[in-house]
Every structure is written in C-alpha cells, then in structure tokens.
C-alpha cells in the first residue's frame, strides 16, 4: 500500500488564524527540534492490485438503510482494530457484487432512483479498479437486475474469465452478459422459470429452476446465446427444497438441501451434468434434525475442503437462521473431516484463500468471528468496522 502523491498546492483559506512563516523556523531555539513540516494536501491511499489472502470483501447490505450499502475491504487478521479497514465502495439498494479472479477489478450492479427513493429507477453495472477503488466504467443496465439479500451467484465471471454474467428479475428471469475486455454489454438472455448464474464450463451459465431442474445456457465467443439445455428435475421445490447457494470446487458444484442431502453437479463441461446426491448427516443426526442453515451457509478453501453451517433441531422455517456448528467436508470423498463449535452462532461464513485458511463467520450479533480453519480456534472477534448487517462474506483476489 503506497500513497499517490498529488502535487497540489497547499491552499489554506483563513486569514488571521494562520501565522506560519518561514522565518519562524529560523527562530527555533537551537536546542529544540525544528517544527513539524507543512504536509501535503490531497494524498489518497492506493491498494495493491492483488489483495493479500487474509483480506475479505464484506457485503454490508445496510438492511436498515439500504441506500448506504457497501463492500468493506477488511484485513481479518489485523490485530489493531483501527487498521483493519482497507477501503469501502458503495453498493446501493442491495446491490450485487462479484470479482474477477485474475484481473484487478470487481463489479457492482446497483439501482438508483433519481431522488433516492423516488423518481425514475436506473440500474447500473459498475467496474471498480482494485488499486484505486475508482470507477473505470459504468453501464446503464437494460432491465431490472435481481434485487435480493446478498447471494454469491447473482453475478459471476465465466470459466474462461472473458464474460461477466448477471441475473435479472423483472419478475421474469433472465441474465445479461458483459465483456471483460472493454466492458461492453453484449446480450440479455431469457431463462424462463430459472434463476441465478452459476458458471459452467468455459462459457456456459447454469440456472436453477422452479420445477426442480437446471437450465444451462451456452454462450458463443461473442457472448450471445448459442444453446439452452434443460436438465431434468432432481428435487421437489415444495417438498425437498435445496439451497440455491452451492459451493463450487474445481467446477464441481454441491447444492445442500434443507435437510442435508448434498446434490452434486459437474459444471466442468459445456452443459451441467447431475451426478447424484449423498447425505451430509448420519441417520442419527438426521433424527436430531441437524441441518444446513444460514445465509452464506457454505464456502470452500483453496485445498478443496468445504465448510457448512449446521443447526441442531432444524425445522420448517429455520433454514436461513444459521447454526451453532461448522462441519468440514472432503466432498470428493463424501466424508466429514471435522466439526467446529462456533463461539456465538453463525449466520454466514466465508473462508480466506491460501494454505492456512481462516473461517470468517457473521455471528448471531452480526459481528465477525475469525476462526482458524484447521483448529477451529477463535483468533479474534471483529466489531465496529462500519458494519450493521454484514450478511455476505467474499474471499479477496
């Protein structure tokens, strides 16, 4: 992190209260140190183009004042409370957020009324530069973006890293495609009955459907629709609902059901392929109603381990309320490796990048607990970082 020096003349406005004169410096007693120098005005911090592994991007939904939503860039291992915040960007009215994995930029899709809450509504897609947190480009959106509580897959970057796809909901469902090169809006593609944008293969997008199936939309090199494929229903949206929030490990997607079944999709090909399901819970645990629960209830580390918030005594209606434990799975082996008791409930979790991952948890008091992923031990609790409702946690890149 270094400063961008702007060579701006120091202009001070007030006559009479300023008495700084060069001659004063000369009059300083020889024994006393010289006075502090006049400092430059206009300096602004610059961030690195690639963020350290222990930073997280906190989606502060600002649920009580949605005009003030923001993404807070936070160093979750910093011990000094005052030095944890690295920067913030605005994200209006439950704006959507995603990041490019290798290019130093991220994206916010947000809505504005001409007068705060009234007047013409405009949705805009905004490209932020990671180093300056300045807007590189703004695209006026062609339709109504999806506006919900924060999700990881309302927007995504495609497998080839060349397109950003973003879900719309008017309430008819569609998604729009933006090029990474040049940031041009390329197309808007209807996905009747199916929502969200799970990156699939190189240039495909899968969406989850009301009939319990999946729809994969294949894009061509110009970001236009090439084909759409419907995958037959694999769950019942009334009786055996799943979370719309999968974890995707090496293009293998895992969608937990409300009751703890794990549905596996292969997203590595051009079209999503259903690979069956297995259970996160034993028969005993199922009888005790141990269930996945939470908002951002699932994430993975870079070693491929998957972390899921689990609640005991789950019931109809408690599916997003969070839980008291985090279960760690090797999803390839369909094996539970560890159980972590969280210190103070867990509503959302996010896992940092790197070989020594940390679990960051939005706890029951809506502040963050940082846990060591291996030992489960509490490293620190982070409150007071400009937060009110930090509902979703993203890795940084």
């Amino acid at each position, binding site marked *: 992190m270094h400063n961008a020096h702007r060579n701006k003349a120091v202009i001070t406005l007030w006559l009479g209260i300023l008495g700084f004169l060069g001659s004063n410096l000369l009059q300083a007693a020889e024994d006393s140190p010289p006075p502090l120098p006049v400092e430059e005005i206009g300096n602004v911090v610059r961030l690195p183009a690639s963020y350290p592994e222990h930073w997280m991007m906190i989606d502060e*939904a600002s*649920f*009580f*004042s*949605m*005009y003030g939503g923001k993404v807070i860039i936070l160093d979750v291992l910093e011990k000094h409370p005052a030095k944890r915040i690295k920067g913030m960007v605005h994200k209006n*009215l*439950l704006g959507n957020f995603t990041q490019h994995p290798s290019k130093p930029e991220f994206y916010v899709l947000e809505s504005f*009324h001409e007068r*705060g*809450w*009234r007047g013409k*509504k405009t949705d805009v897609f905004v490209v932020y530069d990671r180093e300056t947190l300045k807007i590189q480009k703004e695209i006026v959106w062609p339709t*109504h973006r*999806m*506006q*919900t*509580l924060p999700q990881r897959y309302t927007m995504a970057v495609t497998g080839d890293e060349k397109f950003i796809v973003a879900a719309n*909901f*008017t*309430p*008819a*469902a569609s998604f729009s495609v933006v090029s990474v090169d040049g940031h041009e809006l390329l197309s808007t593609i*209807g996905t*009747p*009955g*199916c*929502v*969200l944008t799970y990156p699939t293969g190189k240039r495909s997008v899968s969406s*989850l*459907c*009301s*009939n319990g199936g999946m729809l994969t939309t294949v894009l061509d090199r110009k970001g236009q629709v090439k084909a759409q494929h419907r995958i037959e229903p694999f769950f019942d*949206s*009334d009786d055996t*609902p*799943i*979370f*719309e*929030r999968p974890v995707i490990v090496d293009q293998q997607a895992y969608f937990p059901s409300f009751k703890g079944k794990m549905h596996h999709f292969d997203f590595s090909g051009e079209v999503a392929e259903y690979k069956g399901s297995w259970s996160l819970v034993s028969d005993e645990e199922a009888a005790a109603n141990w269930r996945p629960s939470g*908002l951002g209830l699932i994430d993975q580390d870079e070693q491929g381990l998957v972390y899921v918030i689990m*609640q005991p*005594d789950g*019931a*109809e*209606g*408690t*599916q*997003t*309320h*969070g839980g*008291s434990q985090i279960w760690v799975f090797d999803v390839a082996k369909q094996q539970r490796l560890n159980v972590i008791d969280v210190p*103070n*409930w867990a*509503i959302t979790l996010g896992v940092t990048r790197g070989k020594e991952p940390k679990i960051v948890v939005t706890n*029951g*008091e*809506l502040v963050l607990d940082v846990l060591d992923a291996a030992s489960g031990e509490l490293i620190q609790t982070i409150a007071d970082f400009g937060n*009110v409702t930090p*509902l979703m946690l993203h890795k940084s890149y």
Partner: protein
Amino acid sequence: MKILDKILEKSARNVAQHSSRRSLLTGLGTALVGAASIPLLPVARASDQQQAQKPDESGDPTSCDYWRYCAIDGFLCECCGGNYNTCPPGTEMSTLTWIGTCKNPTDGRNYVISYNDCCGVTQCGTCLCQRDERDRPIYRADKSNDVNWCLGSESTVYHCSTAIVVGLAFDN
C-alpha cells in the same frame, strides 16, 4: 429458532437504540421467478355473507408470533404507522407479493396470506420479524421472501410488510 431468538434478542437489547432484531435479517417482500412459466390468476373475492356468527381471529399483530406472520420476513407495518393489513401513510402497497399458508389458531383453518410490502419510504427499521415457514429460495419466487417485492411498485424502496388474508387454503 428458539436459540436464534435468544441470541438475537440479546443482540436486540444491545442495539436497542438502533432497532429491534427480533429475528435474523433475511428478507424483504415477495417475488416471482419463472413468471414466464407460471400463469397469473385473478382470484374471486368473497361475497359478503350474512351469517349469525362472526369470523373469529385472535392474537397480537404487534407480536412476531401472530399467526398471520408464519412466512413473513421483514419489518412489521403494524409497528410503522400502518397495521397488519394496511400500509403506513405515504407508502404504496405492492401488487406483486409472495404468499404463505398460515393456520388461524382460533378457527383451526389454514388461510392463504399475501405478504404485500409497503413501498416508497426509507426502511421502517423496527419490529423485524422473520418466520420463514415454507419459505423457498428465489427459484420458487411465489414462496420466496428474500426478494425485494417492491420491484413492481412506483418506488422499489422497501418500507415494511403486511399480512393480508386472501383466501382459505385448499385443505379446508
């Protein structure tokens, strides 16, 4: 939910001057996925029937436990200058909604409840109530309360939620 209630009630005391967090924050109003695949249906109004007995309902609409709120997730209009079926002044009631099925403990019948949001004023910010019974993710938007259902209103800004009886459920 009991555990969560405890935690969040504790939290609510801590943030007393900020707002009540009667339960976890997870929703807004009501939505409509796959509008393309699910047809819209106008439903007949009940004719006013003259009957000897009066319809029977009890409970406290200022409480999150009120029977009509079984699938709600949002600020209760009852606390915001409106009430359980009427919007606060200055707001507009959404026409798009999501729907729950709740049992009236007094007559034992299941009713279809429409959770119409009141839109067009900054968030009310008190009496947050999250029940979520039979709430489904956004792929079943007809039952999803995580969507901002003010999307079809003049202003898309969410203020609070009502719980309006729109009919008897099938099983009655």
